[in-house]
């Protein structure tokens, strides 16, 4: 994005103004305007106006407007969902990282597990919902399982790819410097594949946020997904949209934190540094 800005012709008369923030808000502002105009032209419609959603957000956060079952529930719902997202993500990473390394480097493990995962992977998390509720019961355990499932595959696939695509030259370099074959894994494979694994973790965490609503369709009482489901049943569409916005912003901030972390840890990698 910075390159695009630099490519603009320099204005010799006045000091250059950084237009990046402007570029970044154009699309959201236009979308908001279209939404507002659309609902203003059609006052009796089923889609609530931005003002309605704003009011709902305020009530969700601080209460004092409707004082119903949704009021002041934003923080508890957000904490419950974020807890599930991060907990399930950590569980998924704890399983997918070692499994991915084994599948990527050991032929026997690859032959043993890869075909199974290839078949399981295309099955959507939504399809697992009924089975998950039978296996883990109605409530948070099922939600946890479904979110972990959503985060698992991106981490697995990227880890397998990362450990498999280590430049062969680096093995030769390490060996001629005195690294024994048994120590190539910690000395070369692991550090060389960190950027790829990191990409997997980033995608996995993103997916965890994507599937949180499905995960919380399992009859949990509290959480952003549960809130959206409840509001839907009560036709409180302004709360549904407020919930969508909260998930979007939470997922964005969560991803941004991961990107900052990556820049710190992977300063050596041209893709991350």
């Amino acid at each position, binding site marked *: 994005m910075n390159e695009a800005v630099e490519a603009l012709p320099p204005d010799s008369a006045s000091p250059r103004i950084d237009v990046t923030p402007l570029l970044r808000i154009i699309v959201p502002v236009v979308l908001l305007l279209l939404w507002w105009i659309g609902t203003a032209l059609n006052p009796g419609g089923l889609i609530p106006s931005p003002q309605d959603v704003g009011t709902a957000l305020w009530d969700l956060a601080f209460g004092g407007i409707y004082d119903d079952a949704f009021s002041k529930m934003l923080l508890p719902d957000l904490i419950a969902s974020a807890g599930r997202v991060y907990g399930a993500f950590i569980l998924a990473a704890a399983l997918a990282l070692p499994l991915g390394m084994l599948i990527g480097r050991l032929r026997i493990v690859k032959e043993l597990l890869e075909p199974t995962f290839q078949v399981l992977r295309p099955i959507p998390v939504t399809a697992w919902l009924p089975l998950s509720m039978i296996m883990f019961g109605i409530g948070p355990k099922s939600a946890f399982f479904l979110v972990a499932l959503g985060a698992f595959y991106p981490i697995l696939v990227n880890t397998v790819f990362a450990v498999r695509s280590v430049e062969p030259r680096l093995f030769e370099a390490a060996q*001629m*410097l*005195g690294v024994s074959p048994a120590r190539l894994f910690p000395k*070369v494979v692991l550090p*060389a594949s960190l950027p790829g694994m990191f990409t997997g973790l980033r995608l996995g965490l993103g997916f965890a946020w994507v599937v949180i609503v499905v995960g919380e369709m399992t009859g949990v009482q509290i959480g952003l997904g549960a809130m959206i489901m409840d509001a839907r049943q009560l036709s409180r569409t302004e709360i549904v949209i407020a919930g969508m916005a909260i998930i979007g912003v939470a997922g964005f901030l969560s991803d941004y934190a991961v990107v900052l972390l990556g820049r710190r840890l992977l300063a050596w990698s041209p893709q991350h540094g």
Partner: protein
Amino acid sequence: MTEPLLQAINTGKIYPGGIEALRNANLTIAPGEFVCLIGASGCGKSTLLRMIAGFETITSGQITMRGKAVTGPGSDRGMVFQDYGLFPWLTIRKNIAFGPIARGRPKAEAMATADRFVTMMGLDRFADSYPHQLSGGMKQRVAIGRVLANDAQMALMDEPFGALDAMTRERLQDELLTIWRATGLSVVFVTHSLEEAIFLADRVVVMSPGPGRIVAEERITLERPRDVSSPEFNDIRRHLASLLHADHARVAA
């Protein structure tokens, strides 16, 4: 002659597909000797170098280092690759310390060694940079530095300056000679440039393809630093060129 550091005796390489990359190569390298392998592509010069390094299996004959058969890579033979092969996740200093640390030297000692070679290679300003921040010439300095820091007795260089621009290449050739003289290292240097071979080597080994083999050896006795435009230099170049192209000449005749 002193006891050879490295000896290749009737060394051959046939790849599993049946392609014969090298036939009956005999080569002796003395301690401190600078030898260039030269030849057209397919002449087996890189194969021979990689067999000396231990990266390729030997399918006939044998290669010995200080009388011991070469069976795999070892830190006594350090390799400098054309594409550098630096560890992108390590700073320049840590790249150079990699070998000593891998061989179990205490960390402080390894870092002190690394610092010495960072300075020797003129890399002080880049000690804490990462490889992707360096130019090709600088990266190749790091690659040479890490072989030196690892107490290698022999540096194996596979067209190390092939990817560099002409100015950088000439500078690195001069620097390599300076380092070679200061350290007493043996060097086996693969190149396809006659000028580079004659400028650098004590001895030029001429190889020919189909199957790859050694066809001639020429000792270069010109005083260093060598003047690439001198008549003596050109005489040698002409002579070696005729050896290099002997095959074509025979076909043409």
